[in-house]
């Protein structure tokens, strides 16, 4: 069996907020959750999607940090900013293509998901992937995923031509190899409405 990895499957998310609530229980960021739960378009759907750190191979947050406060562990976990170094400039907040890092004004420091380093390093699952009732957040082996799920995990994302590889996998429909996000070709609801009007 290979090592366990993190998988996100937003199609299963029921928007319950258990992940958000459980994350806040961690004794390293006491009472503050590192997960955002996005409600996509409540007017038309109950779809929600959890956003956790994707742990990029070459993290943009770390690259733009002028204080070199964001470190990636040898096993690929991108950590919260180091307290003595972080100058609270929020560069990372703007640079992250997934919108993960958060600036916590109370402690004047950037905090982000570190994949429950305290738990995973002793063989436990991350907290959110333990509690998630629908297993939209799952921590398991690639074999388990292949045997159990219909979708395909991908960890390659193209943002405006730039390829980003991540430690965390996103479940997408079978056959999809990578996700391309191109602001120029993004479909907005207003565009659809306008098209409908033209017709």
């Amino acid at each position, binding site marked *: 069996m290979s090592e366990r990895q993190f998988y996100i499957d937003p199609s*299963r998310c029921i928007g319950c*907020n258990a992940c958000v*609530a459980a994350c806040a*229980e961690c004794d390293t960021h006491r*009472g503050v959750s590192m997960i955002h739960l996005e409600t996509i378009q409540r007017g038309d*759907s109950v779809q*929600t999607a959890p956003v956790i750190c994707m742990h990029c191979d070459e993290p943009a947050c770390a690259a733009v940090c002028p204080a070199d406060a964001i470190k990636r562990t040898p096993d690929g976990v991108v950590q919260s900013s180091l307290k003595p170094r972080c100058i609270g400039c929020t560069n990372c907040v703007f640079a992250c293509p997934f919108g993960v890092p958060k600036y916590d004004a109370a402690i004047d420091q950037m905090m982000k998901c570190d994949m429950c380093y305290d738990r995973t390093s002793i063989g436990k699952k991350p907290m959110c992937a333990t*509690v998630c009732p629908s*297993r939209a957040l799952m921590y398991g082996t690639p074999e388990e995923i292949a045997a159990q*799920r219909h979708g395909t995990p991908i960890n390659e994302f193209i943002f405006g031509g730039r390829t980003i590889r991540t430690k965390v996998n996103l479940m997408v429909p079978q056959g999809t190899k990578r996700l391309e996000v191109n602001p120029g070709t993004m479909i907005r609801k207003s565009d659809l409405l306008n098209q409908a009007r033209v017709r």
Partner: protein
Amino acid sequence: MAKLPVPVEKLTAQFGPTLNYSPVGGWQNRSEPEKLVKTHCCFCGQQCGIQLKVRGNRVIGFEPWEEFPFNRGKLCPKGVKRYLQDNHPDRLLAPMKRVEGTGFVPVSWDEALDTTVRELQRVQAQFGRDAVAMLSGVSLTNEKSYLVGKFARVALQTKELDYNGRLCMVSAGTGNKKAFGIDRAANSWADILEAKVILCAGTNVAECSPITTDYIWRARDRGAKLIMIDPRVTPMARTCDLHLPVRPGADSALLVGMLRVMIEQNLVDLAFIDKYTSGWEETRDSALAMPLEEASRISGVRVEDIVKAATMWGEAPTSFLLHARGIEHHTKGVDNVLACINLVLATGRLGRPGCGYATITGQGNGQGGREHGHKCDQLPGNRDIENPQHREYIAHVWGIPEEELPRKGHSAQEIMNLIHEGQIKALVSICFNPLVSLPDSNFTREALSRLEHYTAIDFFLNETAHHADIVLAGSLHEEEEGTSTSAEGRVIRIRKAVDPPGDARTDTSILLEMARRLGRGKYFDHFTDSEAIFNELRVASKGGTADYYGITYERIENEMGVFWPCPEIGHPGTPRLFETLKFHTPDGKAHFHPTPYRPSAEEPDEEYPVILTTGRVVSQYLSGTQTRRIGGLVDMCPEPYVEIHPTLAQRYGIRDGAMMRVESRRGAVVLKAKVVTTIRPDTIFIPYHWPGDLAANNLTNRALDPLSKIPEFKKSVVRIAPVEPAS
């Protein structure tokens, strides 16, 4: 004198809800726990395994319990934040009495109990024993439920005892008893995994039974198809294979339509029907008497979708049908349940792997509570209070002459009606907040104000207890040992993690002391601890359909729960019922029942043209007595709202996010509109967990199902209007 002693604002300022956000001592000071207590969440019928972190006699946090087989560590946000009900600033730390103009003031236990007993005895001497009623709740353990049942009948000697499960599982229970002779989920959830078609009727699984979501998804991973019957696109309906957006109150028309299609397409198992069931001919004829177009017109579901659902269900090799309050909270709740059971029986898919049926019990101990204690028509072991042998047996266990055992009393709503009429003069309540949870809150408030005496046992001062004369500070789930029974029928251990704080006492000791003071101590004095109560419960349930005799504390702990019926110590328990296809009815067969459609108590008319349906949100539990005090949960959904379809909203000029007024024949609320396409255009939805001006139950109807006496929460009619912001 059950009027408020001071204005409600003053009471809420003193007794909350206050929002508790952080563990005792604050986030920064939380230290390592001294112990982890393996117990269960108290906030829904799934009863997830959870470990509470305890330090210095305080619950300071939680840790998932990944070994517990039902949920394997999974929790919804209520389970995650549940520990914040401990060390809560609103917690009642001493008994109190009502003082006009002042509010509630602490008194000694002696004074509180003396007053209660004196008043109850006065009322009973003057107006008869049944002028005192008791209302209970199924957040209580099996032990406490059993104790309440015995206390009311043996110590208070009243027949007027009922419970908040009346607002939850009674339609399912009645339907199950009629069809199967037993009231329990027919299968453990493990059979969901093997099902090839899963039909969910009136259950917002994602929000009200979140862990079940994972069972359904795992079945879908193996190719199962999911059909959801719901007026709203709930989170599970969003991705299901077939969504049937039924008009509230028209479930039976839809289900009968499906049965008709199955008959016409030969998708029924006549060999099974012939051998193991009765009542098929009438049920078949009644289904064939309903034209499909009629079923479609009434239910608002397209003919082709009814056919599609019937074909999917009919052709499935294995299947699981789940239903909940969506079909049960109706004046024809029992009929709707029976219509579901008919679909199961017609295919013979029961009693084997992957073939199942269950109601999703909503309340924490909804299952065990109704079996052993406080339902007005039942005795322990799911026995019938009017059955002579059952009466004889329980009277014997309790050591009283059979004729002293009270007879069947009234249901919760009927008790409130009798209070309103002045026939019931005094009330003892525990673990029930009817002012928020019963329909027609204005009526309930008026009724409460007519009580001559009211004693409330609770850990927080809930909205109903505002009307009390005496408040007895009781205990939380994590402050006493005991057992409860999950939605699956699995009997599990509830562990004591901490002692009740301050001068608060355990619910058990309060009831025992009251029994003593009522002069009935000799029937209760052998209850030295929770296990002693459980051991009497085992004997009392022996030979009943809900037989717990073979279940012990030790077994539950060793086996991570035991499924009843379990009649002998050596018996393995029964995760799956009906494996031999012998049913618990007098003739041993499962019974079909015709369920012809009939209208709801209220249907839309010119004056009140819009249908209102009510329900829950994932972050709140029932009347919110506990969950409206937990900051992290309140933040997820701070107040109720109105889900309304854009076409309906547009017709009335109601904008998304703007305030709107909703008015029924009984009351009104003004709430924020949530304009969404995920609801039927003729229906609005409001979650019900809030009191006062925010209460959905200001609007709902007190009409009851004639058999189960469940109120019609899922359908009343209203008129709506935008509210212009004051300029």
